[in-house]
C-alpha cells in the first residue's frame, strides 16, 4: 500500500559534477548527441523571432548555394550547451557567459551534433570559499566529424562540502 512505502529508502540518483570533479586537461565527452530536424529549426527560429529566410525559406537558402535551410546557429549553440550541462554545470551555479564562439560551417536539417569539452582552467574564488571557477573549451562536430562550433565558457561551480560529524 502506498502509504506504507518508506520514501526515504529510495536513494536519489544524483546527476552532475562539482568543482572537485574537474582537473585541468580533463576530457569530457558529453552524452546523447542530437539530430537537429527541420521541425526543431522552424520552432526555435520562429519562437525566438528569428524569421530569417536563410533559416525558414528553403528555396531562398537553395538560391544561396545551400541544399536546404541553414539551421539557426543559435539553435546549434543552445543544443551544444544543453548536451554539456549535466557534465559541466547542472549542479554548479548560474551560467555567466561565453567567449570566442565560432560557427565553423552550416548545419542542415538531419545533421547530428555531438559535443565534448576540455577543462582549460580551475581556480579558487577569492571571495566565495564554497565555489570555484572553471573554464572549459567545448567543441561540437557533425556526423562527418567536421567541427561545427566551438567556444570557451567560464562558470562558478559549487564545491562538494566536506563531510561533517553526523553525516551518514
Amino acid at each position: 500500500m502506498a502509504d506504507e512505502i518508506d520514501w526515504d529508502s529510495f536513494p536519489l540518483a544524483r546527476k552532475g559534477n562539482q568543482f572537485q570533479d574537474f582537473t585541468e586537461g580533463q576530457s569530457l565527452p558529453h552524452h546523447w548527441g542530437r539530430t537537429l530536424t527541420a521541425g526543431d529549426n522552424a520552432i526555435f527560429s520562429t519562437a525566438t523571432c528569428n524569421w530569417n529566410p536563410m533559416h525558414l525559406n528553403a528555396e531562398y537558402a537553395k538560391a544561396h548555394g545551400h541544399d536546404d535551410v541553414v539551421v539557426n546557429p543559435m539553435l546549434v549553440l543552445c543544443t551544444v550547451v544543453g548536451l554539456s550541462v549535466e557534465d559541466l554545470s547542472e549542479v554548479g551555479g548560474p551560467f555567466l557567459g561565453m567567449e570566442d564562439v565560432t560557427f565553423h560551417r552550416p548545419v542542415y536539417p538531419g545533421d547530428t551534433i555531438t559535443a565534448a569539452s576540455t577543462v582549460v582552467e580551475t581556480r579558487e574564488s577569492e571571495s566565495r570559499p564554497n565555489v570555484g571557477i572553471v573554464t572549459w573549451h567545448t567543441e561540437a562536430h557533425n556526423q562527418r566529424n567536421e567541427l561545427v562550433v566551438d567556444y570557451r565558457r567560464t562558470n562558478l561551480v559549487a564545491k562538494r562540502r566536506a563531510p561533517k560529524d553526523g553525516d551518514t
Partner: protein
Amino acid sequence: MTDTPPDVGLTGDGNYFEDFSVGQRMQHFRSATIDEVENNFITKQVMNTAQGHWNEEAMRGSPLGDGRLVFGLITGSMTVGLTSQDTAENALAEVGLDKVRFRKPVHHGDTITAYTEVLSIDDADRDDAGVVRFKHWGRNQGGDVVCELERTVLIKRRSHWVAS
C-alpha cells in the same frame, strides 16, 4: 539558380553591408515576452537538463528569484532574434559571438527589448559581402540589462547582389 537575384522582394533593402556604419545605434522595433514556449519548451528541446529552468518547485524561494529561471542562451537567442531583421536579413552567414554575458536573472513573463551598436565594419575574404561586428544588449521591462554580447555577421554587399 535563375537569372533573377534570389532575394528580390523577400528581404529588405536597408540592411545590406553598405548600410551599416561604425557607431550606428538601433533600438529594435519589437520586444518579446519569454514564457512557456520560449523557455520551458526550448530549454528541454535543446537538451538542457538543468531543472531550475523547467521545474517550478526546484526554484521556489531561490536567491535568484522565485520560479523557473530562463536559460541564459534563450535570453541571448531572443535578443539576437529580435535584432535579426535589422542586422541579418541580408546576411550570408553568422560568423560568431564573443563576450556573451548574462547580467541578471530572467523569469517567465519577463519581456526583452533589444538594442544594437555597430562596432566595426570590415572587408570579407569574398568580394560580394563584408563583415559587420555588432554589440547587442537585451533589457527587461524594468530597463535592466539582462544580457549583452558581440556578434559577427557576414552580410551581402548591395553592389554585388542587387541589380542596378
